[in-house]
């Protein structure tokens, strides 16, 4: 059967189908590749084709106090968001999956809803709330705002893992005499750990790349990297932006690899 299939004559329809999809992949990936070209191109402004290879834009990026302050602030916030969303989201997912709560589908949809509502409105609403509360725009307010939009990712990956694992493992441990607390710490927790961590890494990226939620919540001189890049790009379009972009892309790529290592990318296919 296979041999017969392989001997099929040249199939123009299929070739067109594969070519089309190849082109679409180029459309998806080329813009990201192009950023690298501009990050290495020594010309003082964005110009094509590139004339050489230099690291001057990376030097400019890493030497600029403005960019560096923003980078460290973004990393610090993303780190806090990572920890907070693992604790809050992991607990929430466990409660949803194992807590025998009434109205579970509604609760799940509710905790997912920050992903569905316009992020810029979440930022606006928090801005209004902080304004009314008269607390200014503190960094912890920004961290909690990011945590709010990052928690759904942790809930999703943790629920996916909880959904997949065999509940009988927990029941077996209980039958063998383990207390519920011991079952939780020695069976459930180790089993969901990859899902929780993968969600946490996702939460880190969501916070690190976050723009719409941050827009109204940052203070001058206390802006995160995406906001600084956005403001810079409104007036200047040079290789420093490309270098900064490259740094965040490399960060994201390494995260993808970590994710793939931890639980595989399948968990993200379920939107």
């Amino acid at each position, binding site marked *: 059967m296979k041999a017969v299939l392989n001997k099929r004559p040249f199939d123009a329809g299929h070739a067109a189908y594969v070519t089309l999809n190849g082109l679409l992949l180029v459309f998806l990936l080329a813009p990201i590749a192009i950023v690298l070209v501009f990050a290495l191109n020594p010309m003082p402004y964005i110009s094509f084709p590139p004339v050489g290879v230099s690291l001057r834009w990376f030097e400019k990026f890493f030497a600029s106090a403005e960019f560096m302050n923003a980078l460290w602030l973004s990393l610090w916030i993303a780190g806090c968001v990572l920890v907070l969303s693992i604790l809050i989201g992991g607990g*929430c997912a466990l409660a949803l999956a194992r807590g025998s709560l009434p109205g579970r589908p509604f609760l799940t949809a509710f905790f997912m809803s920050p992903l569905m509502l316009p992020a810029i409105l979440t930022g606006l609403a928090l801005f209004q709330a902080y304004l009314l509360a008269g607390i200014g725009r503190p960094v912890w307010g920004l961290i909690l705002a990011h945590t709010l939009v990052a928690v759904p990712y942790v809930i999703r990956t943790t629920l996916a893992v909880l959904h997949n694992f065999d509940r009988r493992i927990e029941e077996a441990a209980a039958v063998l005499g383990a207390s519920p607390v011991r079952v939780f710490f020695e069976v459930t927790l180790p089993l969901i750990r990859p899902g929780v961590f993968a969600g946490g890494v996702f939460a880190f990226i969501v916070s690190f790349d976050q723009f719409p939620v941050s827009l109204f919540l940052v203070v001058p001189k206390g802006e995160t990297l995406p906001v600084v890049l956005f403001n810079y790009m409104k007036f200047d379009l040079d290789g420093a932006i490309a270098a900064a972009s490259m740094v965040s892309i490399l960060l994201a790529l390494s995260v993808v690899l970590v994710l793939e290592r931890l639980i595989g990318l399948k968990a993200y296919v379920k939107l």
Partner: protein
Amino acid sequence: MTTRGRPSPIAWLLAPAALLFVLFFVLPFGVMAAMSVFSGNPVNNPNAFLTTRHYERFVFDTAGIYHDALWATLRIGLITTIISLLIGYPLAHWMARMQSRLGHALVLMAVIAPMLTGIVVRTFAWMTILQDKGVINTLLIQWGLTDKPLPLMYNEFGTIVALVHIYVPFMVLTLTGVIGRIDERLEQAARSLGAGRLRAFVEVTLPLSLPGILAGSLLVFALSISAYVTPSLMGGTDVLTLPMLIAQQVGTSFNPNFAGALGVILLLVSLAIVIAYNRILARLSGEQGLA
């Protein structure tokens, strides 16, 4: 198995999330709605009074810009959605029907990689491609196809191109799930009964993937009408959308009350879309809904 009994102690783990969501999600949206019906800040301004004037300002639109902004937002969202569907469907179909696991993983990586790159960075990438001295115009001039650069950016065209690139992965992922669940043998049966490949696709696979098309389109539409970064960088002075208007009211006009009213209007449009999206997904996957 206590699916119907009382909540178990583990339900308490929900408390931190519930607290976060009430204080930093439900309450702020309530504040936004409240601000939109006040003349000023009701906490520190004793003269602030209840008013519908922010909504009237939008509805009567004496300045003649708000309706245009709403219309531009919806138009850009609609065109972005249609193009994302046209681009996303072949990719999703390819991925769903791919036999090789490695090939599937690679395409999936290629689709997800842009999602993990920030919106600001991806918009920057398109600026370098579409601007006057960008990649496309340089090549076109070099090859003698045009004398002066084509206006690819600082207009609606550039905005839509970048938005499609940013949101097409969401379309692909939604569609892949749905197409993957369609039994391939149905198409094979149609073909063995004499239908050509195209006819089998149009009459079998396409109708069966309709819920996915609808869900993916609603998702991309909801995302693109709330985009801020891309229209404000790629649109130049040509494009003014609702989210840009909101940012203007907060940033330059400092009118948080009118911004609140605009926010409520955008929220209502989004909510309608989200509810429709959830209905479709719930019908697709039983009770699971968004999870």
